[in-house]
């Protein structure tokens, strides 16, 4: 596989991001789908335990750190991001030397209710305040009452942060951060959409590896400049006819969080079968945040963040996947049934029956390598690709 050069820049950028955290005055541990714009606008440094979990998975240290939590009584059936993150707190270290201690915690349940429980645990360990941003689940239509409920909480949250930091929210700064966030998300979306080219200049593995800035640095100049560069590299590839894999015969779509400790194994496996995973539902989830309007920031933050990909019914999820199938012209879908992520995985059996192309389900876990059965997964995937 021809890896993107930008990955090197990403590593440096993220190393810098982690370093910055240790010097920050006020730090919040925050969930991946929370409106981080408010934090950046109020000079609060956001720490992302989920990103940390992914990093631990990619370093193949999932079971190692999980063990620290399991020894304290946390069940192995709990989400592995949570288990590893809590494990690192008990271990007092991690591949990045542990996350800096939070001043407060900010959990938004638009991705799962697991984060509420996880952050409650953290709040008891660190003895710091926790703000839960409660998003109604939008199974069908988004009601005005739901929006009002979220808007009220966003205003409460601003007051909550003002009390902790002792400084008032500056509306013009929030606007500025919002504008940067939209700009980064648009550029990020442009990057992902480059995979529409045939052959594709990138795989979803490139998207996975390079997603950290859109998660952690959304709302800053860093994310804008990073995705500008990534877009340029991809445009160059298209211009010069450079494809991500040698011989793209099949185009596939990945569903669910990646199997972080097996990224290389999967990418080599698919390349050896001339299959290119051109896109995925996970990294696409962040493209929806481009609809933020600076004219009415709070209500548009409420709207955009409430209808995030995991906070909608499976009917709507299947529509989105079918749209991705059509846009990227894929021949099949590989669905990761992820033991750690119930809202992402339950419903896959039903979604599968609503898709316009064939699909296969493989069972594993995003971070815990003990839940990975190589022979079984390889056989399933081989049979699927043969059928295609």
């Amino acid at each position: 596989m021809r890896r993107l050069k930008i990955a090197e820049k990403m590593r440096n950028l993220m190393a810098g991001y982690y370093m910055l955290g240790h010097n920050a005055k006020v730090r919040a541990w925050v969930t991946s789908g929370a409106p981080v714009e408010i934090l950046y606008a109020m000079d609060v440094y956001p720490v992302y335990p989920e990103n940390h979990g992914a990093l631990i998975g990619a370093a193949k240290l999932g079971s190692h750190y999980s063990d620290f939590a399991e020894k304290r009584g946390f069940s192995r059936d709990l989400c592995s991001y949570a288990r590893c993150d809590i494990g690192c707190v008990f271990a007092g270290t991690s591949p990045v030397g542990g996350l800096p201690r939070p001043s407060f915690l900010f959990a938004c349940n638009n991705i799962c209710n697991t984060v509420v429980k996880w952050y409650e645990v953290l709040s008891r360990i660190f003895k710091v305040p926790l703000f839960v941003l409660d998003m109604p689940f939008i199974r069908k239509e988004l009601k005005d009452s739901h929006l009002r409920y979220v808007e009220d909480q966003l205003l409460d949250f601003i007051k909550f942060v003002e009390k902790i930091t002792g400084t008032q929210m500056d509306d013009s700064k929030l606007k500025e951060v919002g504008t940067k966030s939209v700009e980064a998300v648009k550029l990020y979306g442009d990057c992902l959409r480059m995979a529409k080219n045939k052959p594709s200049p990138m795989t979803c593995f490139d998207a996975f590896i390079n997603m950290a800035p859109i998660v952690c640095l959304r709302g800053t100049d860093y994310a804008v400049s990073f995705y500008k560069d990534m877009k340029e590299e991809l445009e160059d590839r298209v211009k010069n006819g450079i494809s991500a894999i040698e011989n793209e015969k099949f185009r596939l779509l990945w569903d669910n969080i990646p199997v972080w400790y097996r990224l290389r194994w999967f990418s080599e496996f698919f390349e050896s079968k001339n299959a290119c995973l051109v896109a995925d539902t996970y990294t696409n989830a962040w493209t929806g945040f481009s609809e933020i309007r600076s004219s009415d920031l709070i209500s548009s933050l409420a709207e955009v963040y409430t209808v995030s990909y995991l906070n909608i019914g499976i009917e709507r999820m299947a529509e989105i996947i079918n749209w991705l199938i059509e846009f990227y012209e894929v021949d099949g879908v590989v669905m990761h049934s992820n033991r750690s992520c119930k809202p992402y995985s339950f419903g896959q059996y039903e979604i599968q029956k609503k898709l316009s192309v064939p699909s296969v389900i493989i069972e594993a876990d995003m971070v815990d390598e003990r839940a990975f059965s190589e022979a079984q997964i390889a056989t399933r995937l081989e049979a699927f690709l043969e059928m295609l």
Partner: protein
Amino acid sequence: MKVGYFCTFTPKELIHSAGFLPFRVFATRKPISLASAYIQSYACSQARGALEVAMSDEFHGFVFTRSCDTLMRLTDILEFLGKRVYNIEFPTKIGNVDYYVQELRDFCKALESWGGEISFERVMESLELYRELEEKLTKLFEICADYETAIKVQQTEVRDAIKLVEKKIAEAKKENAPKILLTGSVCPYPEIYEIFRNAGFAIKDDLCTGRRFFEFRRPNFEPHDLNSALRFLAEKYFAKAPCPTKHYSNDYRFEYLLKLAEDCAAVVFLLVKFCEPHFFDFPQLKEKLEEMGKKVALIELEFPVASTEQIRTRVEALREVIE
């Protein structure tokens, strides 16, 4: 007509007042087979078992309340199977009553579209009936925790349920044994509770098949119209025995549980495998309970329970430790 529900936060009063029979769906003794084609094996066996039951044609519809992620997706799955479903967005964060009153208003409309009738008088009548049932269950449990009855009333018309509980109160005998606190989600098998009783414990609980079904703090006002009746209902359910799927200020659930455990000799976490909300709370609660000097044990359940022998051995060992 039966309307199935899964969670004790469901406003049964409204379902009942609309002219339906609110019927709590539990995993049964039947092995889970059909459901396996629709949900993964790492969903808890209460969800898988309930799905198995829900796949039959005996229900007019199903009502869900936002509680755990699994139930949230079970709504989608049942709809996919062609069932009539409705989910009430019960807030995860307990606090905003106005928001929940609006959710209940929307639910009333859904019940009407299902063929039900909603009126102030009927809602008040159902509120009154359930108040009576809850008070009688509280009285019964003060004498002797009777889980067979507590489970049965969740699947019985409320007027018949009241009569059943009255009969049980008349027959009940006060238990004089060291108390044990059972905490967890559901355990729809009466024989499991008998194991504790046979080992010489009197049972106190924090379960959806026990206290969490009937313990409420009632608001201090009399509803005068439908709107205020819905507000009454919202406040009643906000002030219900707490559940780990909800987020309370000041860690209210921990405080509640530690208080509940005060007069108990031991605490048993009776947890259904894969139940995230309970398993997240377990380690830190256990630590606090042990600091209080309580003996703590964890028993993991999977439905249908294949053998009660292992559980019996664990419970008897616990009894010996306490002696």
